[in-house]
C-alpha cells in the first residue's frame, strides 16, 4: 500500500477527515479538517476530503488505506461514514479498517493521566457511555459499548469515587446532569475535544494494530456500530413476551472488537 492513510468520521454532528503518512515507526498527521454539519455529512464529506487532499498536493488515487469511525453515534451519520469509506476503499482497492468513534474521542485525551469518560449522544434521551484509562499517550478501554440512560450512567460513575475527565457530544445535553452527580469528581475536557478528530482516529487505529486486533482490512469485514435497544427496552420486550429484537438494519456489530 502507499504511504498515505485517510481517516474519516461522521458519527456525530462533527464531520471529520484527516490524512496521515506512514513513517518508519510512526504515523505523521499531514492534514485534518472538521466541519459542524448536523445531518449534512452526506453533502460535506467528499468535498471536504477532496479539498484536504488537494491542499496537501495529493490525489485520492494516492490513498493507500482508509480508516473509518464506525460509531456508535447517529444512525444516519454512521451509515454515511461507513458507506462512503467502503466505497472509497473498494474503488481504490485498498484496505479499510474501522475504529470506535468513542475510542477516537478518548485518544484525543491520551496524554491526560486520568480516567476518561466518553458520553456519546444516543438520542432519544440515552447515551453511549465508555470509560478509558488514559495517560502516557495511550487510551485503554475499560468498558464495552452500551446504551443507557444518562442518569443511570451518572450515578454509576459517581459511585466510582474518583475524578473523571468527561468528553463526548452527549455532554451538550447532559453536562449539568453529570456535573451535579459527580460533583468535584467531574472534570470537563475542553468542549473542542468533545467530538472525534482524525488525530484520535489514527491513534485508536495504531493501538488496534499494536494490540493484534488488526482486522483483515477487507472492506466487507468492517461493520457499523448502530444504535441498538437499551437494556430497558430489551426488558420491556421480554416482559411482553416478544423475541429479542433484531438489531436494526443490515448487520450490526454491537460490542465486539473495535
Amino acid at each position, binding site marked *: 500500500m502507499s504511504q498515505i492513510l485517510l481517516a474519516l468520521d461522521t458519527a456525530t454532528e462533527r464531520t471529520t477527515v484527516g490524512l496521515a503518512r506512514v513513517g518508519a515507526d510512526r504515523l505523521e498527521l499531514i492534514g485534518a479538517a472538521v466541519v459542524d454539519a*448536523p*445531518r449534512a455529512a452526506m453533502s460535506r464529506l467528499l468535498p471536504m476530503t477532496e479539498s484536504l487532499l488537494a491542499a496537501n498536493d495529493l490525489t485520492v488515487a494516492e490513498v493507500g488505506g482508509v480508516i473509518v469511525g464506525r460509531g456508535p453515534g447517529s*444512525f*444516519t*451519520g454512521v451509515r454515511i461514514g461507513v458507506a462512503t469509506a467502503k466505497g472509497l476503499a473498494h474503488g481504490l482497492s485498498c484496505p479499510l479498517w474501522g475504529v470506535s468513534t468513542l475510542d477516537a474521542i478518548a485518544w484525543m485525551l491520551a496524554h491526560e493521566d486520568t480516567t476518561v469518560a466518553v458520553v456519546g449522544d444516543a*438520542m*432519544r434521551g440515552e447515551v453511549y457511555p465508555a470509560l478509558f484509562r488514559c495517560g502516557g499517550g495511550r487510551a485503554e478501554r475499560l468498558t464495552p459499548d452500551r446504551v443507557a440512560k444518562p442518569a443511570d450512567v451518572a450515578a454509576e460513575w459517581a459511585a466510582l469515587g474518583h475524578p473523571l475527565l468527561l468528553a463526548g457530544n452527549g455532554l451538550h445535553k447532559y453536562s449539568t446532569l453529570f456535573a451535579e452527580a459527580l460533583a468535584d469528581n467531574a472534570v470537563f475536557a475542553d468542549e473542542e475535544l468533545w467530538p472525534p478528530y482524525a488525530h484520535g482516529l489514527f491513534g485508536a487505529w495504531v493501538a488496534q494494530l499494536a494490540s493484534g486486533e488488526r482486522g483483515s482490512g477487507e472492506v466487507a469485514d468492517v461493520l457499523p456500530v448502530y*444504535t441498538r435497544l437499551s437494556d430497558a427496552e430489551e426488558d420491556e420486550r421480554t416482559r411482553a413476551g416478544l423475541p429479542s429484537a433484531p438489531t*436494526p*438494519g443490515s448487520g450490526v456489530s454491537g460490542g465486539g472488537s473495535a
Partner: protein
Amino acid sequence: MPVWTITTESDTATQAVGHALAALVMPGDVVVLSGDLGAGKTQLTKGLAAALGVVDSVTSPTFNILLVHEGRIPLYHFDLYRLQAAEELDDIDYWATLEADGVSVVEWGDRFAEAIPEECVVVRIRITGDDARVLALEPRGIRGEEIATLWAEACTGIVGVGCVPDPADAERMPGANAQRGSDRP
C-alpha cells in the same frame, strides 16, 4: 386523557390554531398529529408554517415522508404513513431530526409507539361536522405540558376557535382557571 380540547369551525380556524403555535415553539419541540384523512392535519401545519415565515407551499409529505421548510426556525414536516416498521424511523434519521434545530410536526406519528417522543404534544383531530373539528391536545413530558398550556392560551379569542381545559385534568394544570369558560366563540 387530553388536557385541552380545542374546537374549530373551519379550515381557516384550524390554520389559525397552527398559527398560534408558531410564536411559542423552540428548536427540538415536537407536535404529533393524528386523525383521519381530511381531518385537518395539514391545515394545522400550514398555519404553523405561515406564521413561522415559511414562504413555500405546505402539502402533506405522504410521498416524501419528510419535507423541510425554512422559517424563523426550520419546520420538519413528517408523514409516517408510508413507513412499514418502526425500524425505518432510523432510516429517515428521525431522532436526529427531531432533536435538531427546528420544530417537528409528525403526521401519522401514532402509527408507531416509538415515534412519539417523551416530550411532545399529541394532537388528535376528530371530524365532528362538515367543517367542524375537535382537537384534543395530549401533552407528554414537561415541555409537552408547557407547549399545550401556552398553545391553549394563545388560542383563546381566535374567531371560530373554542378552547377548554379537560375538566378531569383542569385542577392540576397551572393557569387552567384563567382559561375556564372564558373562551367560547
